[in-house]
Each structure stands twice: as structure tokens, then as C-alpha cells.
């Protein structure tokens, strides 16, 4: 396989793998967070407002990990720096 093909295959496989592996951790974390927030709300319905606010902020924090992975895989697929380098080298 020539170097163009190598870069293309490596980028696409890595993008998929990055998304797949990167979604597992945040999914487990968000599940745990929602679980404990729900049981706290069931125990103390009076504190629902502050619990919900903290839950949202925490979920956004956890979710940003998955978003990082997504941004990386988007860059690998759509704006790959190595790919443009290889194309330039092959063309010029």
C-alpha cells in the first residue's frame, strides 16, 4: 500500500475507534451521575432545584470528554493535517 492509502486507512480507523472507545467512559459516568441524582431527588424532593442544577453542570463536564473525542475524530475525517501533507507531497 502506498503512503496515501496508509494515511487514509489509519485516519478512518482511528476516527471510528476514537469515537467508540471515547463514548464508553462518559456513558458509564453519566449513568452513575444520573442514578445518584435521581435517588437523591427521590429522598429529598425539596432540594430538587439545586440538585438538578448541579446535575446539569456535572453532566456537561462529563459530556465534554466525549465531545473532545468527537472533535478529534471530526478533525481526522474532515480536516486531517497529515492527509493534506501527503496530498501536497504527491502533487508537488
Amino acid at each position: 500500500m502506498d503512503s496515501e492509502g496508509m494515511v487514509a486507512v489509519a485516519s478512518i480507523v482511528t476516527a471510528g475507534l476514537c469515537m467508540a472507545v471515547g463514548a464508553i467512559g462518559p456513558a458509564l459516568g453519566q449513568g452513575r451521575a444520573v442514578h445518584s441524582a435521581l435517588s437523591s431527588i427521590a429522598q429529598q424532593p425539596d432540594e430538587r432545584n439545586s440538585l438538578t442544577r448541579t446535575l446539569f453542570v456535572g453532566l456537561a463536564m462529563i459530556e465534554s470528554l466525549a465531545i473532545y473525542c468527537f472533535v478529534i475524530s471530526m478533525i481526522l475525517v474532515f480536516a486531517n493535517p497529515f492527509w493534506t501533507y501527503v496530498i501536497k507531497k504527491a502533487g508537488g
Partner: protein
Amino acid sequence: MEIVAINQISPDQVVFFQWRWIIINATLVYTWLVMGLLVFGSLLITRRLSLERSLSRWQNLAEVILGGVRSELREISREDADNYIPFIGTLFLFILVSNLLTILPGYVAPTSSLTTTAALAVLVFLAVPLFGIAKLGIIEYLKEYFRPNLLFFPFHIMGEFSRTLALAVRLFGNLMSHEKVITILLAVTPLFFPVVMQALGLLIGLIQAYIFSVLAMVYIASASQSHQEKGDGEKNTNPLEKGRMKVWTVKAWLRWRRL
């Protein structure tokens, strides 16, 4: 109407107008649109405010927004938060309007470009020491970096930078992913399913605007409360006192019911 093609990752790459080194891209144009909408909208609303019983519906809307932002900030920072309303409220309104307008065809959210979100995050990064120094004085503010001891100084610095990066990438990633999902769905299953995703996008936009401003408020509040004040704050709200207050209010309420 497609403005940003599928292989373009940000609206910065869509150039509307170019003259020598001046490049007007889609991000700039839509940022100006949102700015104009906010500025002229609020000018029109505040041109004739009334203190009477009857007020215009737009004044009512402005009061509802301001009251909501003020009570939310007051609850988060546990102090009088009127100083922070101009900054945090503007951040919230700008992100909210630019996210919610995505349901209009032909509009691209300026927040789906990394340059806009990075600029907003840098604003927060600069505002944290400014508010902190204004509240505590420069010596007391700098002391916070050396707590609990000298070894923690590099970690505080790293934390400042990494949370700024996280703010920028979180907003950008959410909005950009939403746009890409819509574009892909339009190609795969047109007509019905993209509409559902658009409705979900409204929710995402609202939550992201809320989270950005809440996090900015949390960062500023944590920088402008000194170490001693934090300890005092915990002492004041001891659970026994709170329980007593609750019993007292219940008793008062029962007495009032009997009257």
C-alpha cells in the same frame, strides 16, 4: 439551503467577500447579525419603559429574563450578584440567541466555529482575575494561587488554562456536532427525521448557553471569595440551625391557618 458544506468543519471556511487582506466569512456575518438583533432589540425595548401597572409585552419579557438571570446568579454565587449581571448576562444572551436561531434556514450558528467560542472563553479567562482583584485586592487574590502550599502553584495555573480550553471546545463541539448530524441526516433520511433533530438542537443550544454562563459564574465566584469567607459560609449554615428554622416556619404557618 446549505451554507457550510459537509467537508467543511467550521463556518470560517465560507468566505462571502474578500478584498485584499480583509476577509468577511460566515462567522463574522452571523455574529454581526446576532449582535445587531440583541442591541437594536434592547434599544427598542428600553426606549420607553413604564413604571405603570400596564407595560408592553417586550418590557415584560426583558424583566423576566433579567429577573431569572439575577436570581440564578444570586443562588450560585451566594452573595449579591448584581456586579456580574452585565458580563454573565451578555454571555448568556449572546450564546442563547446564536444557538436558537439555528432553526432558521440559511443560518449558521457563529458558536459552531472554534474562533467564536475561543474568544468567549478568553473573555471568561480574563474576567476571573479582574473580578477577583476588584473584590479581594491583588495580594489576597495572588495568595489563593499558593494554597494549600507552594507546591500547588503549577496546578492552579494549569487548571486555569485547561478549563478555558474546556469551555471553548465544549461549546464548539456541541454546536458543530449538531450541525454535522443534521447535514448527514438530510442526505440519508430527508423530510421527517431532521426536524426531530432540529427540535433536539434547540434543547442542546439552551443547555449549552446555560452551562457556559453557570460555569463562568462559578469560576468568577470561586476566585472572588477568599479562603476565610468560604470557611465562615459553611459555619453559618449548620444543619441544626436550618432544622430549627424549618420547625419554626411550620409552626408559624399552622398558627396562621388556625386564625
